[in-house]
Structure formats: C-alpha cells, structure tokens
C-alpha cells in the first residue's frame, strides 16, 4: 500500500506549515468558531463553580484549532466520535450551543436528554456519536463506523478523536491494525496536549513521536501543528481524501496544549507543570494565531475581531439562559432508554 518508505520519511519531518488559502468569509467563520469554543468553555467553568454543572468536566481551552480545522474538512454525513473532552468538538460540528449547555446542566433539552452530561454529548442528526468516558474506548467504535461505511459502499469517513495518553492503550493498537488491514475509511485524530491528567507524555510513553506508531501498521501519518487551523485543515483534507477516495486510514498527531487543568478539579498549573510552561504555550494561542493572520491579510482589524467575539459572547449567554430555563427530565425518564422497548 501507499505507506511507502518515501512517505514515511515525509511524515517524519517537523510539523508542516501550511500556506493558507482561504477566503475572508471562511476565516471569519473559523475565528467565530474558535471564539465560540473558547467562550463557551469559560462560561462552562463559571457555571461549574456555581454548581450548575456537576460531575467531571473537561475543558477544551487551548485545543480549539484542532476541532475547528478537522470539522471544517468533513461532510455532514461523516461520523465523529470523541473522548470526554468533547464540548469543543460538538460545537465545531454544529451542535447548537443551547443543547450542549443544557446537557452540561443535565436538563431535559440537553442533546442527550440530560442523561449523558459533559462526557456523553450525542447528536445523532449530525452523526456526532458521543463523548466516551473510558480512555481509548471510542477508538474501536469509530473504526466500526468506518467498517460500516465501507460495508454499505458509501464514501463516508469516520473520525475518532482521542488524547495522546490513549495511544498507550490496547484499543488504539487493535483499531489501527484492523483499519489498516481492512483498508477502512477512518481518520484517527490524536490530540497530543502533552499530558494525560498529570502525567507528562515523556513519563508514560517510550517513543515521543506518536504518529510513528501508525507505521507499525503500514498506515499513513503526519504530525501537525494543532494550534493553527490552516495546518490542521490542510493535513485533515489529505487524510479525508485518502479515506474517501482510496478507503485508507490515516493517523494525525495534532500537537497542541491545554491551558487549563485536566478537569475542573485540577488547577491549571502548580503540581505537575509550571506557570511558566503554560505561559510559554499561551504565546501560540490558536485564537491569537488566527487573529494575526486575518489582520495581516487585511481581512479585519481589532474592532472587527472584537465584534465577532461580542457576537459569540451573546450566543453563549443565550445558551446559558436556555439551559437555566430548561426543566429537569421527568422522574419517569430514569427508566426509559435502557432498552429499545419497554424502557
């Protein structure tokens, strides 16, 4: 297959810099999305400290360019699964902020009827098939969706998101092997944010270039600058094309960083990483990178950017108001949706 020596060498280069070719409208749209993902999570954090959101809550702050760039390359009928860190993925996929926030609040109007919560966002109409809470558990699921697409003879693509720590779990390896063996139209998005909870990648992983793992399965792979929407989209388009036209899988290692703690119960820094480290990575904030590009291209100015951000803030406030007003699910809901019939 095409995972030849030449392309392996190409793959093992430093993260590729893409030459952006995008219209002003696209850029505004992506900047809008980046802001939406950021502001939504900031508000979710607020709501969490007010006790409106319970349980585990993992924010996407810092990783927004990955979700936005990947979703920008997909079709409406493609399949998506993610981990518990999936609020931003759902938003970028177009799941309405209202129904996501209502789900975080556990309300009846939430996208999973209040039964899933932060870690289990589902929107079947958009083929957004879950946040999943067991590390690596969604990787075989996404592989199965790719299997189904191929079985049905459609040209749908299935995308599985997971963290770098999930690349050490068996389901990752079993899935990649089967996807390569059976030539499935799957794209694996490894979001390498440097940490699995408090464990730095170097303390858990023998080989730091995680995308190389695909080569054991004769699968194409790339390392990508995950802070830059253009780089993400560029690599993703190659992977999607490979899946759609040749029915071959790809592993993309998105090099990114989370600016906040692992979950709401974890401080941004202090124990396992320093404030300086976080500050250093903040210099490559995906919102700042996109804003700088747009200004440089003369697409907008500071006022224009602020106008987008203000628009987003209104949208997020609206989502919170909606979630506040949505009722709890009725008590009878406890016993429904266990089985197809009879509850």
């Amino acid at each position, binding site marked *: 297959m095409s995972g030849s020596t030449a392309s392996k060498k190409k793959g093992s280069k430093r993260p590729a810099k893409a030459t952006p070719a995008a219209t002003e409208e696209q850029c505004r749209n992506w900047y809008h999305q980046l802001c939406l993902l950021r502001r939504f999570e900031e508000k979710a954090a607020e709501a969490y400290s007010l006790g409106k959101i319970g349980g585990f809550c993992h924010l996407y702050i810092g990783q927004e360019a990955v979700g936005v760039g990947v979703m920008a390359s997909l079709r409406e009928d493609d399949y998506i699964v993610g981990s518990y860190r999936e609020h931003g993925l759902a938003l970028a996929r177009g799941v309405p902020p209202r129904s996501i926030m209502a789900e975080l609040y556990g309300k009846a109007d939430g996208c999973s009827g209040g039964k899933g919560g932060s870690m289990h966002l589902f929107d079947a109409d958009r083929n957004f098939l879950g946040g999943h809470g067991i590390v690596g558990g969604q990787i075989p699921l996404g592989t199965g969706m790719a299997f189904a697409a191929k079985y049905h003879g459609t040209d749908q693509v299935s995308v599985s998101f997971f963290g770098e720590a999930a690349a050490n779990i068996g389901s990752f390896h079993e899935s990649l092997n089967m996807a390569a063996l059976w030539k499935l139209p799957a794209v694996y998005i490894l979001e390498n944010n440097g940490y699995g909870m408090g464990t730095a990648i170097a303390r858990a992983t023998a080989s730091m270039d995680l995308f190389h793992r695909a080569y054991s399965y004769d699968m194409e792979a790339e390392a990508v600058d995950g802070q830059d929407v253009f780089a993400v989209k560029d690599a993703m388009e190659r992977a999607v094309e490979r899946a759609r036209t040749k029915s071959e899988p790809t592993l993309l290692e998105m090099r990114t960083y989370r600016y906040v703690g692992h979950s709401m119960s974890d401080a941004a820094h202090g124990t396992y990483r320093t404030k300086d480290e976080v500050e250093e990575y903040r210099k490559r904030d995906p919102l700042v990178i996109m804003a700088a590009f747009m200004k440089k291209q003369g697409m907008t100015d500071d006022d224009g950017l602020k106008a987008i951000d203000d628009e987003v803030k209104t949208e997020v406030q609206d989502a919170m108001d909606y979630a506040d007003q949505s009722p709890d699910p009725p008590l009878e809901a406890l016993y429904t949706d266990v*089985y197809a019939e009879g509850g």
Partner: protein
Amino acid sequence: MLTLTYRDALNEALREEMQRDDRVFLMGEEVAEYDGAYKVSRGLLKEFGPKRVVDTPIAELGFTGLGVGAAMVGLRPVIEVMTWNFALLAIDQIVNSAAKMRYMSGGQVGVPMVIRGPNGSALQLAAQHSQAFEAWYAHIPGLKVVMPATPADAKGLLKSAIRDDDPVVFMEGEMLYNLKGEVPEGDITVPIGAADVKRTGSDVTIVCHSKTVAQALKAADRLAEENISAEVVDLRTIRPMDTDTIFTSVSKTNRCVVAEEGWPFAGVGAQVVDYIQRNIFDELDAPVIRVTGADVPMPYNKRLEKEARVDPAKIVAAAKRVLYLE
C-alpha cells in the same frame, strides 16, 4: 421437524438471518476460512463471502468495539467470541459501550448486536478455560442474556437475538454443540424473555438453564423412579427473566431447587431465590436450595473436576432436601 445438532441449529439460524437481512455480518476469530473454532459458522464464508464473514486478528476488545460502532450506524453485527473466557478482554466494550449507548445518548443511538460463543466448562480444560459468566452480564442493565439448552431453542433464540434492537449476550453451551434434537422447519423464532417448562411435575420445581437443563431432566427421571414428580423450568433467557413462569410453577409445587453451572456467590440462582422470596414467600413449604459449581477455580484433575461440577445426583439430593426426604 428436522433432527439437528445444537451446532447445526445455530448454523441454520445464522444462515437464514444473513439471507434475510444483508445488514447482518459475522465477525470473529477463525469464523471464516477455518469454519469456526467450534464449526458453528461452517459454510458461511462460501455462501456469503469475506465481506460478511470476517476473520479477525486476536483482538477481542478491538473487534467487539468495532461491532458496537458498526451497530451504532445501522449494521447488525454478530460477533463471535471463541469462548466467553476470552471475552473478558472485550468486557469494557460490552459493558461500557454496548450496554450504555442508548441510555447515555438519551435514546438516540442503539446497539443492535449479538455477541455469541461457548460458555462454561468442557472437559479438563482447567481454570482459565472453564468458566460460566452469565451472572456477570446479567448484572448489567442494557444487556440481554440468552442461553439456549436445546437445538430448537438455539435456533429460535439466535434468530430473535439477531433481530433484537439491543445488545444480546448469547451464550452457547460448550458441551451442547453435539446435542441432537428436533427443530421446527422454517422461519421459527423463540421469544427472548420467555422461560420454558421442559417437563411438568407437581412435587418440586427445578429452575435451570443451559447445561443444567439436561442434568435437571436426568435428575427428574431418577426422582420419578422414587415417585417424586419434578417440574423442570428452563430459564432460556437470564435477563430479562421470566418470573411469571417460575412463580406459576413454584406456586404449584411449593418447593424449588435452582441449578446453575456457575459459582454460587451472587450467581443467577441468587437472583431467582430473591424473586421467589419477595413475591411468593407464602407459597413455599421449604427454603429454596441452590446447586452450583464449587466455589473454586476449576481444577484440571478429572476426579477433582467432577467433584466441582453440578451433576444430576447433586440435583436429586437437593430436591430430596427441599422435600425433607434426606
């Protein structure tokens, strides 16, 4: 009626359901070119081709999870586990993905799949290959657990399981594959969730499933020689359990023995006893007694293994105890 082995009855069910619905595919280790580790899938590769009869790597977690994902988007996978001992590697996907998907998606995404294979001990396979896991899966809301004891039930229940819209754990008896029995011809299904009275009687009820059904029937023969009339209730489905049939029988006999191959602690029998004492306590003339496998890992030695197993003699003894005859 046709006379078929349990193995061939399962094979017929697979073949007919694959003919009927092209969303159904079979996947597992050795299911295709090898014709199945226990030959349940014999001939299916030839008839349906490698797209629908898929040999997998030895990756239980991966291919079971792949099945769940495929089921989430419209296929109807039948995932064969070579034995349920190995499904421990897949239990995360069965419990955390398959069983939970409908609920945690608020009813949006179901998982219509069957996970099937042999359960329980065979002969001298020792500790890691001689385990009965039904109580584990029956514990999980969102799963159905089906365990046929006869060729007719094997065929009819597997057809129902494949048509079911929820994940079904379908446990075959490793020692039952060669069992012969009459099987109705044609497209006959057996409903999930319905127990079956395999022998009627009036003095004592023996509740059993899978391998213990034949043992209970033997025990009933021996009891009959002593003028004791035993009724044999085959659960057929562990979850959802058909309590009506149990209650009707025990209300008639007023005495009950529960026999299962698995271990005693928190076993299926414990659940049966709980249902009986909570619902028809006043019908009982004696405490319900359970007959189970010994509470140890299975030994290799033949004599010790025999001692660890349920057998008709142990069921007879238990029946006499609930009748206060021993």
